[in-house]
């Protein structure tokens, strides 16, 4: 394999289209006769539904249909699927597509309205009168664990799941340790908030009895299977296509959403295309949130700061339903140890129901919380012993020669948590150098002398990426010499069109411009898992390499026959197969593609040219050999034994205003190791976006409910996503420790940037202020109140 393109920072091939506004998103899809859906949503956090009166809506011109739970039948009248069961999930609950008797959060869908356009659908929705009998809402982890009121009548303690993992005897280790600390560490609720909300478009072909669904989803293949099951259709009659998707960040991996089954169902019933494009307020109150957890930490350590025992108990707010099982708290509990040897470790969590929007993974998926806990603990140990914060970390690091390193835990994929590779001391050294750690004491003191407060923080993390079970790809060389790559995995703007093309082009020796990549279209590739957990590059990347490798082998075999040489003597350069050292003995890949398909008809010039070559086993063999297939094409899959573990270190310098408590990030440095880089520019972009979200999560974004379960900031006016003006310049350095687990040696990079954000900024603020920061996010008002509390 040539390594011409792998590792090259070529520009993103999707950008000219996306940046120029030529992308096609869900809401851009319009068809003649199309209808629009809108939903009546609960204004109460908890209530029983007494009556739904639709008569007012019937006066709206253009109303086509109103549906409530009573209209649903068969599988559709059942609760939506539990996507990821787990033995610890003792009381899993998922919602009905439309509420049956009860609503459990503000925003839960109660009725669907279909009209000739969205304006009229909203007019009609506004006129539907639902009578509710309000019930006491459960809001916040304290109320949930007290269980004075219940979210689900049949879950007496509001606990959906309870899980303990223990390596060694943590309690004994802590009790016997020379030093002990106790910390309470909280992370508040936030949400993925992609710029494009969810959306579904469905078209039923009555003659063909087939359904085409467009969805702004992170998994088209699984949505297809879910729809076939829920709508009682043969899988073959359902196709799901993802158009351009304006961000997902986790929320769109949940499937099928209520709207995702209802819109196709209505399209079938009404025999007309139906579209629903979620608006921002709907997204806030009816999709999914994440992050809210309260952690209670006990740690024991020796005089040098070495960890002897760590015990973490935490509460996870899973909202009203648990379609995604325990993934978020499970990831927290297993990724919390990070790059450290813990000694003994015990982790226990309760996942609790509240009358709020359901919680499902958001970029980082439990890791930002775990890293916050571990890194705040490291800083607390350093403070307790008067040691440099990086020294404590160094002393606890797993060393490169200890790889592979088994943490003794079971990871989210149900497999042992074994780190495959990584050089944590090197990453820390690079980060210290990048940020100027050793010189910072002088900087801090100089600033102090001028009445300024500056502080520095550092945070390390390890991230399990590229979880299985599998991903696949189809690669075909067309008779034009162009290459088609199809993977079932979806894309939300990450740059898959570029990196998968780079991989295929390298394998096949063709210019990258000749490779066309299709993602997330079940018509092109039927088996896939989805885009989440930093898995696309690892999983589909290796699958593309596998499929392209097969195609290459086949091309060399056929070219060998045509040129009457040993395939081992052939190479492919710029789309031409030739004999090494004898370039005049050559055949274009396009001609090989023609020869690979023993069809008699010569449609084009390529086909005519190819007739000068003779291939095949002669007149006594079948034109397509028994173990062969026509076409220069192949399908490849990649299925790893377990995840591969990326790592990194972030360091930040902040300044806080002594009077107004404004928090300004002066520098943000990232050292990032995701194994071999397919395209450094794209990895950099992923890191930039991740850091922006990390800064958002640390200093700006939070979901605020009042005690009645009303969401107080359901708009971008009050849910503060940082603008470009709030995101600092980001300085990046890369390490490349290849993964031994996959042929390309790559690890995932999609989530890394966000993971240590809260930890590193809390550390830097704490350093500037000299006050412990144990709860994130933090805003100027809170910092100011913290100062006052500290003075009292």
């Amino acid at each position: 394999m040539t390594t011409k393109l792998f590792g090259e920072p070529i520009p993103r091939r999707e950008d000219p289209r996306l940046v120029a506004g030529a992308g096609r998103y869900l809401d851009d899809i319009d068809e003649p006769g199309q209808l629009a859906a809108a939903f009546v949503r609960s204004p109460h956090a908890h209530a029983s539904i007494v009556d739904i009166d639709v008569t007012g809506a019937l006066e709206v011109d253009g109303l086509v249909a109103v549906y409530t739970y009573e209209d649903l039948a068969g599988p559709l009248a059942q609760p939506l699927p539990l996507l990821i069961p787990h033995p610890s999930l003792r009381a899993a609950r998922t919602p009905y597509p439309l509420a049956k008797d009860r609503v459990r959060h503000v925003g839960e869908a109660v009725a669907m309205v279909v009209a000739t356009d969205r304006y009229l659908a909203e007019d009609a929705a506004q006129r539907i009168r639902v009578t509710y009998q309000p019930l006491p809402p459960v809001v916040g982890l304290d109320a949930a664990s007290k269980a004075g009121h219940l979210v689900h009548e049949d879950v007496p303690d509001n606990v959906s799941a309870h899980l303990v993992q223990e390596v060694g005897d943590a309690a004994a280790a802590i009790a016997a340790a020379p030093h002990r600390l106790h910390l309470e560490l909280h992370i508040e609720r936030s949400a993925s908030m992609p710029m494009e909300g969810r959306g579904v478009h469905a078209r039923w072909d009555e003659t063909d009895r087939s359904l085409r669904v467009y969805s702004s989803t992170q998994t088209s293949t699984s949505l297809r299977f879910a729809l076939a099951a829920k709508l009682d259709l043969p899988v073959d009659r359902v196709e799901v296509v993802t158009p351009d998707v304006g961000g997902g960040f986790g929320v769109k991996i949940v499937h099928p959403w209520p709207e995702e089954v209802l819109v196709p169902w209505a399209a079938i019933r009404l025999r007309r295309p139906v579209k629903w494009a979620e608006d921002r307020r709907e997204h806030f109150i009816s999709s999914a949130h994440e992050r809210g957890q309260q952690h209670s930490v006990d740690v024991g350590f020796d005089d040098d700061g070495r960890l002897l025992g760590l015990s973490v108990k935490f509460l996870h707010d899973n909202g009203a339903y648990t379609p995604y099982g325990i993934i978020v708290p499970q990831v927290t509990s297993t990724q919390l140890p990070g790059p450290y040897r813990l000694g003994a470790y015990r982790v226990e969590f309760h996942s609790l129901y509240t009358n709020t929007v359901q919680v499902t993974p958001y970029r980082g998926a439990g890791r930002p919380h775990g890293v916050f806990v571990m890194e705040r603990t490291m800083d607390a140990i350093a403070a307790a012993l008067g040691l440099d914060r990086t020294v404590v970390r160094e002393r606890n690091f797993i060393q490169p020669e200890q790889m592979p390193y088994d943490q003794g835990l079971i990871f989210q994929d149900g497999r042992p948590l074994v780190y495959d590779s990584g050089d944590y001391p090197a990453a820390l050294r690079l980060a210290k150098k990048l940020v100027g750690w050793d010189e910072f004491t002088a900087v801090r003191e100089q600033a102090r002398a001028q009445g300024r407060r500056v502080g520095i923080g550092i945070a390390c993390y390890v991230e399990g990426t590229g979880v299985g079970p599998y991903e696949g790809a189809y690669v075909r060389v067309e008779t034009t010499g162009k290459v088609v790559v199809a993977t079932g995995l979806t894309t939300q703007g990450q740059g898959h069109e570029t990196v998968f093309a780079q991989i295929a082009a390298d394998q096949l020796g063709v210019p990258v411009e000749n490779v066309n990549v299709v993602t997330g279209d079940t018509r092109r590739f039927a088996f896939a898992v989805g885009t989440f957990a930093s898995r696309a590059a690892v999983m589909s990347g290796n699958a593309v390499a596998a499929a392209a490798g097969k195609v290459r082998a086949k091309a060399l075999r056929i070219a060998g026959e045509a040129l009457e040489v040993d395939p081992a003597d052939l190479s492919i350069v710029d789309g031409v197969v030739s004999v090494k050292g004898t370039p005049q003995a050559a055949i274009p890949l396009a001609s090989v593609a023609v020869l690979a398909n023993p069809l008699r008809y010569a449609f084009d010039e390529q086909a005519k040219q190819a007739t000068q070559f003779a291939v095949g086993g002669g007149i006594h063999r079948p034109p397509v050999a028994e173990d062969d297939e026509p076409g220069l094409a192949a399908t490849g899959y990649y299925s790893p034994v377990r995840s591969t573990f990326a790592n990194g270190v972030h360091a930040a310098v902040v300044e806080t205003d002594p009077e107004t408590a404004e928090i300004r990030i002066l520098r943000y440095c990232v050292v990032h190791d995701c194994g071999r880089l397919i395209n450094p520019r794209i990895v950099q972009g992923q890191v930039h976006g991740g850091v922006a979200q990390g800064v958002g999560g640390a200093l700006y974004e939070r979901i605020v409910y009042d005690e009645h379960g009303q969401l107080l900031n359901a708009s971008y006016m009050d849910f503060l996503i940082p603008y470009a003006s709030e995101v600092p310049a980001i300085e990046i350095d890369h390490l490349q420790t290849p993964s031994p687990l996959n042929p390309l040696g790559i690890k995932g990079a999609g989530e890394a940037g966000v993971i240590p954000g809260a930890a590193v900024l809390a550390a830097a603020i704490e350093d500037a202020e000299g006050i412990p920061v144990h709860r994130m996010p933090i805003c100027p008002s809170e910092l100011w109140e913290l100062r006052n509390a500290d003075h009292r």
Partner: protein
Amino acid sequence: MKPPPFVYHRPASVVAALATLAEAGEDGKVLAGGQSLVPLLNMRLTQPGHLVDINRIRELSYVDAGSDAVRVGALTRHAELARHPGVPALLREATGCVAHPAIRNRGTTVGSIVHADPAAELPAVLALLRGSVTLASAAARPGRARPDQEIVRRSVAAADFFLGPLTSAVRPDELAVEAVFPRPAPRSGTAWLELSRRKGDFALCGTGVLVTLDEDRRVTGATGAYTGVGPVPVLVELTEAVAGRPVDAVDWDRAGTLAAGAVAPEDDIHATAAYRRQLVRVLSARAGAAAARMAVADG
């Protein structure tokens, strides 16, 4: 997030707009830049039956920078006002803090004042400069059902204009045609400072200070105007904390303390009341000092 149905009117003159407004009465609303009204419509928080779009009334687009006052027509956009060379510093600075360029290109100065958001900059500036708003309506002559062609005008002082959050003295049949910002007296200085969570957001607290000196550079008067700390723009007389002192000897922290004691902010999800009070204290001191420097330069 789609608005309910409404009848859309696009008059080309003030007279025509006033006739439509008079007819629509309580059910009518003026559409200026739409930067506040359209979100409210889309969220169905307001559901007027008639929208009177004034964007075709070119006669309302002007900035008249006179020696006594700056007069701003109802169709003048924030961006146009900020760019105008004859506009005093306070107006330019405060307008520069309103939202983002795209919004300043559409949103109007007068619309912002009529909208009366207690967090908005321009209502506070109008209050600080003791300006006024000119309101127009169609005259109804006795015995005639339909309003007349004649226009009735009244001028409402800023002090009487802001009645509460998002509530101003404009009647449903009235069009605000002009805002009048008097120029500060000679030997005056002004400053606008604010603190917002993100660049361009409505500020947690915005502070304008006007300082006037006598010929000996002693402070004769100082006033603070504040956004985000009350139901309407809040004016605090700071004179007693600083008056009579030579400008270089003024302790502006005293003005800050006075102001902080005079406002009554409330808690919300972005800040506690105590923190907002702290901002009033700090921003008053900083803006006071900056305004004093400008007053020195002025005289």
